[in-house]
């Protein structure tokens, strides 16, 4: 998350040049891709099959001889496969370089780290902005609605392709954490350890409500054009920017907004008695909205938020969350943050209670942070220490050689 405050007070009014770059990433990304063709379709929860699935991914580090040192990192709603590599659209460092890299807790000198763009995304894995091979046009709303489980099933196909039978760990925050839980439920035998951070086993009514506001903002933009904007050469960037602004508030805490901006004015002594961005917090949010539309596809935003809304792991198991983990041998480490009101600690505690009830091996900690939901992306020393300790212990139990002493 950038903390820079832009001085531009005009509302977002252009998708800009990097939007074109982002558009190209959908079909032909700056990442390795695997294409599954027509004869190897992905069966979706929506009841249809998706042929010609393409998955874009990044890997960091090297697999060992036994291919037993793989860690799958799952990204959040608007993240991508560039967990620890330069983002080709934004030019910014990877989104999880706080934890992933040489000598870091998810140590790329020791582990083979895989991160794939999610199904429904816009960075090279099949999504609504990808070209539909049947029509030669972008899928748009012809793309079937996807679920977290569909995302995970697609990742499983990628792992088969990469020759990874069992993962040392699956890790991720927020929507990435949902994928971690789904992995543990769907493929317990392939997941030795799981690190779900700042997440929940279901999306709450409040969270669905926030997502609906975002989707309505996109769809209310006249340039959305029933989802066919790409064919018309326009983009509902105003709507998407508003969606991002609203969502961004939910990623921060009251305290972190206050610490960052308070009621300070943006480059002026007095309020203008108008509707410019008088306050720094307004300017910041406008900047967040503007930079987001440069890199993210509006329809993709609809699909991926929908996938989160549909996530309810207990509902898939007779309403009993513990059933999702019955007999699981996976070691879990569940992490929440005190100031996260999007996925509050109670959500994590519900996961832990279910894991306890199913007799699973689980650690759980709530980290004291004022940074809100975004804390999982930021430098949090306790998260670093816990991730390192948990992975070291999992690697040891999985029979990997000990970490080199620094």
């Amino acid at each position: 998350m950038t903390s820079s405050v832009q001085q531009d007070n005009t509302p977002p009014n252009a998708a800009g040049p990097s939007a074109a770059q982002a558009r190209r990433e959908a079909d032909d990304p700056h990442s390795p891709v695997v294409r599954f063709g027509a004869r190897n379709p992905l069966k979706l929860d929506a009841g249809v099959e998706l042929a010609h699935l393409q998955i874009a991914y990044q890997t960091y580090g090297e697999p060992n001889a036994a291919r037993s040192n793989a860690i799958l990192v799952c990204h959040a709603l608007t993240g991508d496969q560039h967990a620890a590599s330069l983002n080709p659209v934004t030019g910014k460092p990877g989104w999880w370089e706080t934890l992933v890299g040489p000598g870091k807790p998810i140590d790329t000198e020791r582990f083979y780290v895989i991160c794939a763009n999610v199904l429904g995304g816009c960075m090279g894995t099949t999504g609504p902005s990808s070209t539909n091979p049947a029509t030669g046009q972008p899928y748009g709303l012809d793309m079937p609605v996807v679920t977290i489980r569909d995302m995970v099933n697609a990742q499983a196909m990628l792992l088969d392709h990469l020759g990874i039978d069992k993962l040392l760990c699956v890790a991720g925050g927020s929507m990435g954490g949902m994928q971690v839980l789904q992995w543990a439920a769907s493929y317990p035998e392939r997941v030795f350890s799981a690190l779900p951070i700042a997440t929940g086993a279901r999306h709450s009514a409040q969270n669905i409500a926030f997502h609906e506001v975002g989707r309505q903002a996109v769809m209310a933009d006249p340039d959305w054009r029933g989802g066919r904007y790409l064919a018309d050469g326009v983009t509902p960037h105003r709507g998407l920017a508003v969606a991002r602004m609203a969502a961004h508030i939910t990623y921060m805490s009251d305290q972190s907004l206050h610490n960052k901006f308070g009621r300070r004015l943006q480059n002026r002594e007095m309020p203008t008695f108008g509707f410019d961005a008088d306050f720094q917090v307004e300017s910041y949010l406008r900047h967040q909205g503007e930079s987001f539309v440069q890199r993210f596809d509006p329809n993709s935003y609809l699909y991926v938020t929908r996938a989160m809304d549909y996530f309810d792991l207990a509902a898939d198991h007779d309403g009993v969350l513990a059933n999702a983990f019955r007999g699981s041998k996976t070691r879990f480490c569940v992490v929440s943050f005190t100031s996260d009101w999007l996925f509050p600690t109670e959500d994590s505690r519900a996961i832990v209670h279910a894991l306890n009830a199913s007799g699973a091996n689980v650690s759980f900690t709530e980290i004291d942070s004022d940074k809100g939901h975004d804390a999982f992306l930021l430098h949090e020393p306790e998260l670093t220490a816990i991730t390192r300790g948990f992975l070291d212990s999992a690697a040891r139990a999985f029979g990997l050689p000990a970490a080199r002493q620094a």
Partner: protein
Amino acid sequence: MALREGRPGEPVLDEGVVRLQGGRVDLVVVAEMVAPGSRVLDVGSGDGELLELLATTRGCDARGIELSREGVNAGVARGLAVVQGDADVDLAHYPDDAFDYVILSQTLQATRRPRWVLEQMLRIGRRAVVSFPNFGHWRSRLDLMVNGRMPVTDNMPISWYETPNIHFCTIRDFVALVELLDARIEKAVALDSSGHRVRVNMPWWVWNLLGEQAVFLLTRKG
């Protein structure tokens, strides 16, 4: 050193006590009551000292539940399986017979519902190990009798108005509580103020005077 048996005919603990490096002697006594290779839940696991002891010296699958965030984070960072939670609430979420042993070391007196906690422990595990400071120790009694003040000792170092220990009991109080539960005392050890086991085979009231700490191994009946 001869060890007192909890009840006539009950087994005597092994000798050869290993003192923890700078650690609490009661943890060693607790660890010795746990059969090697067992599944163990340590309620109030602190920074994980006992969990590590159980895992490394007894080969146990040891997991913890701890209220303090600092304790949990220290434990998880050491690679231990520790859950942040409140014994008074969260024990209800564990299934029956999930563990061979459930341990409560120096925590009973800090729970809001000691009887409920003990019942939960004996539901979750077939055996429970409980260690606690004995409020019936002669020095506590002397403090109350002579000074008319709540005792402050090495084992109970915090003044009454700040202590998290809200449910102090004596050894005899504890024995009386166990009689109300569906459990029996399998082993018992009292430790004097220097951490040595109280040697003489004596009735409870003597233990209650000389023991500064007590460790009990309980087994569910039936």
